């Protein structure tokens, strides 16, 4: 029972501490910079302006502090290390960059990452949207969505086992224990070695990520679709628009923001993908991707210089998507 009490206390402290911060600082701000009133209740001096000048920093402060420590500082450190040798002791200039450009593993990773980018975000977002729209029209929506969502809830270890069962290969003539090969053989085909045969294997690995990420896209897009005001849709119906027109002319523009967010998120997840590749092939059979390649250089080869260059190239690859989002922020700001 002690452990239970400890755990409960820890949780209360953690969550409570954070609430105390937000309520406390705002309370302190409101009392120290309170408006001054005359005895008759008349406002003598308003401090509202100074209060509202400080308050934003109370709101964003914790986020900025944490981000600086956990992500910004490591990112800056990565940039510095990319100019140093394996142990980050000696300055080597652009050697690591030169190495990356000439490394066949790096080139292959970039190629594969491009391939992943072309497939995964579109497939996941498209399927997620399709499911969100379809599920909205049936009574068993919750059940349908739960089934699609399930892959997200499975730990990665579990997902890896699932797909090993899917892709399992037995020599022709033996009983196939993998679903994909069993179906293939049933239709009279030859069993395939799904994860060792390039370029097919790349798509088989992508399928796993699509399988997982579609649930993510579906949850967010479904929530956004529900936010499209019923009246707008009704009005369009009365004007004689058919369902397809309603979908493309009313719904899509209304959820464009969420679509952009979903796409961006999945693009980044795709660029960073590493555990699927690590577990299924570890980048062998021409399936190397940047995420796994970086992992290899940190933990197997203990070379932070080269790992940093790979990490930076992942970050650079996401820049266009980031600019696009910032552009979107600004535009929407103006529209509001």
């Amino acid at each position: 029972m002690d452990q239970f009490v400890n755990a409960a206390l820890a949780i209360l402290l953690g969550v409570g501490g954070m609430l105390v911060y937000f309520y406390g600082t705002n309370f302190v701000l409101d009392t120290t910079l309170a408006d001054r009133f005359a005895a008759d209740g008349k406002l003598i001096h308003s401090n509202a302006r100074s209060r509202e000048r400080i308050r934003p920093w109370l709101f964003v402060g914790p986020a900025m502090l944490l981000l600086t420590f956990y992500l910004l500082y490591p990112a800056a450190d990565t940039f510095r290390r990319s100019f140093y040798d394996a142990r980050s002791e000696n300055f080597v200039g652009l050697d690591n960059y030169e190495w990356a450009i000439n490394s066949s593993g790096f080139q292959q990773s970039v190629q594969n990452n491009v391939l992943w980018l072309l497939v995964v975000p579109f497939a996941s977002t498209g399927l997620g949207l399709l499911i969100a729209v379809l599920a909205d029209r049936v009574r068993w929506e919750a059940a349908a969505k739960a089934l699609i969502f399930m892959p997200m809830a499975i730990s990665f270890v579990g997902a890896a086992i699932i797909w090993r069962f899917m892709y399992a290969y037995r020599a022709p003539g033996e009983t196939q224990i993998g679903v994909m090969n069993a179906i293939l053989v049933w239709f009279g085909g030859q069993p395939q070695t799904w994860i060792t045969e390039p370029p097919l294997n790349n798509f088989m690995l992508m399928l796993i990520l699509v399988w997982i990420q579609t649930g993510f896209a579906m949850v967010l897009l479904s929530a956004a679709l529900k936010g499209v005001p019923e009246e707008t849709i009704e009005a369009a119906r009365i004007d004689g628009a058919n369902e397809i027109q309603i979908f493309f002319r009313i719904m899509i523009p209304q959820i464009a923001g969420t679509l952009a967010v979903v796409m961006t998120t999945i693009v980044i997840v795709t660029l960073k993908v590493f555990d699927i590749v690590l577990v299924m092939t570890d980048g062998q059979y021409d399936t190397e991707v940047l995420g796994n390649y970086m992992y290899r250089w940190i933990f197997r080869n203990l070379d932070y210089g080269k790992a940093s260059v790979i990490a930076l190239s992942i970050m650079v690859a996401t820049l266009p998507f980031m600019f696009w989002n910032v552009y979107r922020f600004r535009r929407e700001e103006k529209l509001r």
Partner: protein
Amino acid sequence: MSTSQQPQTLAAPAPRAEVPRSSQLQFRITRFLGWFLVRATLIFICVLWTVPTFGLLISSLRDKDALAVSGWWESLQSTITQDQGRSGTAADQIEQEGRYIISGNLLPEGDRREISSFGLTATGFDDFAVGETATTNEGFEITVLEDGTYRLISMEPIPESFSRGQRITFQAETPPRLTLENYDEVINTEGLGDAFLNTATVTIPATIIPIAIAAFAAYAFSWMRFPGRLLLLSIVVGLIVVPLQLSLIPVLRVYNTLELRGTYPGIWLAHTGFGLPLAVFLLYNYISSLPRDLIESAQIDGASHFDIFIRLVVPLSVPALASFTIFQFLWVWNDLLVALVFLGTRPENQVLTSQLNDLVGSRGDNWEIMTASAFVSIAVPLLVFFALQRYFVRGMMAGSVKGG
């Protein structure tokens, strides 16, 4: 658990004016086709998406031996397997009326297999039907019965050199069986309760803290005016791309000097830090799209930003908060790397994922354990999903915005 408040139909608007019969029929056919297509497509996708997991579920209920022999979809068929047993040795012989007999059972106690044929060599498992007699190189006679009992008879005393016994190969039919034994093994693992508690202690604050911090920040970025706002927002969102693996070592160095490693606050903050960019990104997208009039009219009424946030924005943002809660919860619940690194590998600090991972171990051949453990850890996230799913309801957002 139906969440749609108004039943949805695909129907185009009901015809308001009088419509000719033929077009009404055509309209009905179209409507039915649409109705059918929606359901057929959805069912098809759902099945496709579920087959892999369903396979895992069935596999987790099967015998270990069956897993490697046949596909999970064949788990309700009897399987015919070949196996081998070994007779007793010279030391086990009993003299009976001048004959020397070794007897016993090839199948272990409780085995449900039925033997159909047997033989004495690796390829000869169906040389003899049960009840027939085979003769070994040494001249012993062997008979095997359906239930696995065998009798080895020799006319001479069996020499000491017969020390390894005679190998008997056989073919047997195993009736199909689904069992909860695998789950039994996973659930009764030593320390699983502690691991569960650790996971809860990590997951709950590591879900709530980042959401609260991100919501405050997202609100400030959306509706408050301060210098460098868009730049800061861009940086925050840009940080989504920083690969976790690179953050670990620099962060951990600081942790070690502050003695934060292996503590709960340490891992809460780590999960918060790593989850924040995406949280701010998602919540900003939502909170910034709330109607401007709403916020401004509250401001005119004299409410401070803190009041507006707590009283107005948070209730309006429930669907967005709920979706992010689900994701953050899942990431933390299923996370292995951050827990291993920041909480350490000590047994008393183990979370569920690392416990299950260790159970599976470096051996990786305990598929039956892996399958069951995957389902043990999936149960809670699914519960959370169902609990929060009710907040994604049509009209919730639009309706409340109107009311406000």
